[in-house]
C-alpha cells in the first residue's frame, strides 16, 4: 500500500517538475518560435524577454476577494498532507495482534510479537539457516509474513526456501487457522572465508 502511494506521489511530483522546467526552458530558449511549437493562447511564457511572474499578473490575482483565504486554505492542506505522508513513512507497520481460529468455533487474539517470535525460532532451527527475522504485517484478519533469513555457509537457497514453506509457513497457517498466509522471504548470507578443499 505504501509502495503504491509513494510511487504515485513521486511520479506526479516528477511530472509536475518536468512540466514546469520544460515550460520555462521552451520560453527561455525561444523554442516556441524556433521549433514552431503549437501552444495555446494562454501560454504564460512568451519568449526570452518574458519574466516568470509579472507583477501585473500577481496583483491581478491578489485583487480577488477569495485569493488570500484560498491561499491559506491550500497551504494548510498541503502542510497536513505532507505531514501525513511523512508520518506514514516512519510508522513501523507491524501487526500488534491478530485473530486466530481455535478450531472449535472460537477465535482467540494472539499478540503479533508472539507469533513473530515463534516463527522466527522455528525458522532459525531449520537446517541451513543461521538467523531468522520475522515480522508480521497486513491486517488483523489477514496477516502477511515478512521473513529475512540468513543462510548458513554451504546451504542451498532453494532447499531452505522449500523447508521454510513446507514447515514454518504451513505450521503458522494451520495453527492460526488461516486459509492463506502471504509471505515475502528474503535470503541473505554472511560473508565467510572460502574453505579450500583441493
Amino acid at each position, binding site marked *: 500500500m505504501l509502495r503504491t502511494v509513494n510511487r504515485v506521489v*513521486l511520479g506526479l511530483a516528477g511530472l509536475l517538475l518536468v512540466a*514546469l522546467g520544460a515550460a520555462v526552458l521552451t*520560453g527561455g530558449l525561444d523554442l516556441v518560435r524556433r521549433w514552431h511549437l503549437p501552444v495555446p493562447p494562454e501560454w504564460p511564457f512568451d519568449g526570452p524577454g518574458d519574466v516568470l511572474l509579472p507583477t501585473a499578473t500577481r496583483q491581478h490575482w491578489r485583487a480577488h476577494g477569495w485569493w488570500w483565504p484560498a491561499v491559506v486554505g491550500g497551504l494548510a492542506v498541503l502542510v497536513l498532507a505532507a505531514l501525513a505522508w511523512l508520518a506514514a513513512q516512519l510508522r513501523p507497520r507491524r501487526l500488534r495482534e491478530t485473530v486466530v481460529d481455535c478450531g472449535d468455533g472460537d477465535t482467540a487474539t494472539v499478540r503479533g510479537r508472539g507469533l513473530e517470535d515463534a516463527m522466527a525460532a522455528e525458522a532459525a532451527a531449520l537446517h541451513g539457516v543461521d538467523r531468522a527475522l520475522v515480522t508480521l504485517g497486513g491486517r488483523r484478519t489477514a496477516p502477511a509474513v515478512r521473513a529475512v533469513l540468513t543462510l548458513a555457509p554451504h546451504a542451498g537457497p532453494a532447499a531452505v526456501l522449500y523447508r521454510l514453506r513446507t514447515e514454518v509457513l504451513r505450521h503458522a497457517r494451520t495453527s492460526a487457522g488461516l486459509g492463506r498466509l502471504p509471505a515475502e522471504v528474503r535470503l541473505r548470507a554472511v560473508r565467510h572465508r572460502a574453505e579450500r578443499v583441493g
Partner: protein
Amino acid sequence: MTTAERAGAPDPAEAVPPDPSLADAPGPARRFWSVRRLPAVLVAAALLAASGLTLYDVVAVRAHRTGMAWRRALAHQLATRHLDDPWVLAGASLALLLGLWLFVLAVTPGLRRLLPLRTDDPDVRAVLDRRAAALVLRDRAMEVPGVRSVRVGVGRRVVRARAQAHFRALDEVRRDVDSVLTDAVRELGLTRAPVLSVRVGRPPKG
C-alpha cells in the same frame, strides 16, 4: 532412522525441493518493488518545509505583521528576471532533471540487488541477495580439486566465475568448475536462469 517419520515426509535435514528444471515454464520474474521510502521522506520534508514556511508568513502578514524579507525578494526576482537569464535557465534545467529522476524512481522497481526465486506458491514471494548467491556459488566451486581461489560475480543475467587452479590441467578444472556451477546455479532456484561464464587460470607466480 529418524524418529519423526511419517509416510512420505522427507527427512528434514535432507528436504530437497522439486527439481526446478522439471517445473513448468517460469512465470514472470516476481521482483520485489522497493518502497522508495527515502525519496518519499525527502520530498515530503521539502514540501512540508516550503509550504509550512509560506503558510506561516502569509498568516503573519494577514495578521498585520511584516512579512519576511525573502517573500518580497522572491516576488521581485520572479517579476524582473527574464527567461533567458542564466539563473532561470539553470533552475529550469535542474527542475526538469529532478522531475525526470523522481519519475524514473516512481516507475522502476529498484532493489536490483535482489534476485527473485521460484516458489511454486502464488502466496509466497522470495528473493535471494546477489551477494548470497555469489557466496553459495563460490563455496561450490571451491570444492573442485585443483582450485585455489574463485571469484564469482552474480549479475541479473550473467554469472561470472574466475578461478585460479594451482594443479591439474586447466581445461579439466574448467570443465569440472563449469559442471559444478551449472548444477549449483540450478539449485539456487532463480526464476530467471543466468548464463554462466567460467574462466580458469594459473595463480600469479610469487
